[in-house]
């Protein structure tokens, strides 16, 4: 039965699933990367994802319009991101703990709204797969890379865009400066709080999309605690990726591929206890970090609030 694992069909299946599964992690982790690069830790990603998932799902459930669902998720995520920015930047609250507060709020609120507006677990027709003409006909690669729904494509497209913005634009330079040395940035005329408001709100928008990718694209369902820890893993992946979009991509793919592998292992009936299989992505992530032994530093001002003239 282990030999089944190495059939072409299964391997292609694993790689394709891995690409899909990486989607919510990518959106949330890239969004968090922006925030953390500017010096703000947002542990509330999980809560924002849940609210975004609910908002997107409810919009699609009631109107059938997928675009509306996506926009609803982005709006809700953005509002919560803005809220988080206000707490962290203007009120300078302790970031780790306020993040957990936002998480609890999002967890409870999404469940409450779900119970009051939907009541039972429903399904929707989410984003359908889009087969890119020509490219998706390439054997093997076509199926793995070019036959996904639009949110999956978006997640992967986000990585080079984020890399470009962070490393090749003035905005990105400001973000990095604010995260490394806010005093210097401030003295050069960069508004530290405006940059941080932007990155954290953006992180919220992307977390909302991450949630929607689950409820209206990948799983097409919403229930209590739909994300079950994905948001926290996404935050962890930012550390894994060394605060670089490419690193985050590597981490998300690694994590999701191993996740896809263990799902297939179980589907094929290979006698590995399901819980041990589910553990594998987490164990592997830690192992890779140990072996890689990076000397990567976090942004110097991470979690430190900034006050002008201090």
């Amino acid at each position, binding site marked *: 039965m282990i030999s089944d694992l190495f059939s072409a069909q299964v391997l292609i299946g694993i790689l394709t699933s891995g690409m899909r599964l990486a989607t919510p992690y990518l959106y949330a982790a890239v969004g968090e990367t922006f925030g953390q690069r500017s010096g703000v830790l947002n*542990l509330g990603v999980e*809560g924002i994802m849940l609210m975004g998932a609910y908002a997107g799902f409810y919009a699609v459930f009631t109107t059938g319009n997928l675009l509306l669902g996506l926009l609803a998720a982005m709006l809700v995520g953005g509002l919560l991101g803005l809220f988080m920015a206000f*707490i962290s930047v203007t*009120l*300078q*609250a*302790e970031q*780790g*703990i*306020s993040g*957990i*507060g*936002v*998480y*609890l*709020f*999002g*967890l*409870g*609120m999404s*469940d*409450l709204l779900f*119970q*009051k507006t939907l009541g039972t677990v429903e399904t929707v027709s989410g984003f359908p797969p889009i087969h890119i003409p020509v490219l998706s006909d390439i054997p093997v690669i076509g199926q793995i890379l070019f036959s996904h729904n639009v949110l999956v494509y978006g997640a992967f497209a986000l990585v080079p865009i984020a890399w470009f913005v962070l490393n090749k634009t003035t905005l990105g330079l400001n973000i990095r400066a604010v995260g490394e040395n806010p005093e210097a940035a401030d003295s050069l005329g960069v508004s530290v709080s405006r940059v941080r408001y932007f990155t954290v709100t953006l992180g919220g928008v992307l977390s909302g999309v991450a949630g929607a990718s689950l409820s209206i694209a990948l799983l097409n369902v919403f229930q*209590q*605690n739909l994300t*079950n*820890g994905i948001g*926290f*893993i996404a*935050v*962890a*992946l930012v*550390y*894994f990726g060394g605060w670089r979009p490419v690193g985050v991509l590597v981490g998300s793919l690694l994590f999701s591929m191993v996740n896809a592998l263990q799902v297939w292992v179980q589907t094929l009936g290979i006698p590995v*206890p*399901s*819980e*041990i299989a*589910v*553990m594998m992505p*987490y*164990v592997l*992530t*830690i192992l890779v*970090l*140990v072996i890689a*032994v*990076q*000397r990567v530093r*976090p942004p110097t001002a991470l979690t430190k609030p900034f006050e002008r*003239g201090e």
Partner: protein
Amino acid sequence: MGTSLTLSKYPQLERIVDALLPAIATLAALAVGAVMLVLLGANPLEAYRALIEGAFGSRNALADTLVKGTPLLMVGLGICIAFRGGVINIGGEGQLVAGALAATWVALALPHWPGWAIIPLCMVVGFLAGAVWGGIPGALKAYFNVNEILSTIMLNQIAVQGMNFLLRGPMIDPVQLQVASRIPQTARFSRAADLPRLVPTRLHLGTGIAVILAVLVYIFLWRTTYGYRIRAVGLNPDASRYAGIRVERYIVLSLLLSGAFAGLGGAIQVLGVHHRMFTDGSATGFTGSAGFNGIVAALFGKLHPLGTIPASFLFGALLVGANKLQRAMQVPSALITALNGLVVVFVVSSEIWSRRRARRRVTVAPEAAPAAEAEVAA
């Protein structure tokens, strides 16, 4: 900065406000909650009365509040140590599970031991299991530079999956197999392993133990060399290293102790409340999010072990009251989770007041400065 002395005219009043700030912020959050309740069609006054009654209204309610707050206190004590040591431990959930599993295993393996022997043994085993689960991220951080936020989050899930595996397989109650219902839980422990009750309610000895441990943690952190070094490393690792403190060892020690207290909290939970171990498969089914709430409790207590005591029981009250609220008024307990989050956010945000006040006190009058300079030059 050259501004004049700006001490407030009402220092006493400001100090009182400072101390009451968490309470004021909580009330503000509850006000928002009242709005949410109205939108849900429930009377806020009635709802809050149900909440308070559920938490404090009877001897049983009060006992339940204290019992609910106990694991928060245990995790919170560990968090005090960790955060003071400069490490961020998000792994309370997994460490709780590890300690509970270890204690469960021992209790089930030695059913004929008398209470005075089995209970301390289970608690020690829980403490050690939590220490291992906390020590791993500690060692990973100290010697492999693996960020502890990442490793503790990962280890949470690993612990939960391990628990699911054991409770569905090797450790499942034989009765479950017989009746073929396969609920993932263990057999009930022998009565000998029950923590004794303090009064004829659900209040058990574990709560008292937790409070005593809080005092001991305070003494440890502020009256022993190890505690001093932990705090030094937390405040300034470079200076500590220069002073000869082996920073790596104290990073490990901080996370190890942090996990140990959470693990002991897990052991106390199974010995005093559940008398078995169970899971619903989810990440927080067994712990009831005590791992996260414990972090919040510690921060409300200003990372001081003695402050964590009232903070934990306040949270316990909120959680217990929520059940009453759900039963009495059909308000989903999810509202309380959301309210919980709002309280956390409001309280943490309100600290800006204390910080602003503290900054004002440090401003120095310009007349004093030249005189001081003259002194130094002379």
